């Protein structure tokens, strides 16, 4: 069964728009999310396949509204919750 992420070849998404001279990150928070993911992967909190799965499991309407790095952040938050890796501050 195809998930919402599995868009390759599906009609209705229109032409891919390429941004000229696109920077790797459009906002500093995106860079932080990227670095956070690399750090958590390196620390073995989760693996890359778990991360991809977490992105793929985002609810469809959330996935479609979110930008690329927003999906990363949402997936990271879900993984950290799932692994009980977060503690509330007092």
């Amino acid at each position, binding site marked *: 069964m195809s998930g919402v992420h599995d868009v390759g070849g599906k009609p209705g998404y229109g032409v891919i728009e390429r941004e000229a001279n696109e920077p790797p990150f459009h906002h500093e928070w995106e860079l932080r999310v990227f670095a956070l993911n690399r750090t958590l992967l390196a620390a073995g909190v989760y693996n890359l*396949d*778990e991360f991809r799965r977490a992105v793929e499991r985002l609810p469809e309407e959330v996935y479609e509204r979110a930008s690329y790095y927003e999906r990363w952040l949402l997936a990271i938050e879900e993984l950290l919750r799932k692994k009980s890796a977060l503690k509330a501050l007092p």
Partner: protein
Amino acid sequence: MSARFVVGDRVTAPGLDGSGHTRLPGYLRDRRGIVIALRGSVPLADDRAEGAASPRIEALYTVAFEGRDVWGDACEPGVSVHADLWDSYLEKTT
């Protein structure tokens, strides 16, 4: 696990139903391709995605699909799509 296929084998990937993680993209399901390279034995992403302590380790292959077989005439001629797919994803075909 031993490799079931060799370079030159014609294969197809039927795909699994269900919501588990897979590295088979939807557009390649049931398409026929040719094994063009063996990539060694690699832990299955499907298992690793569940955090499995002992993921199955399987032969990994690069399979080439003709673009026109995947997307029909909408695809320009001469396009080949290569996907790295695990042994259990594949079946031999004619």
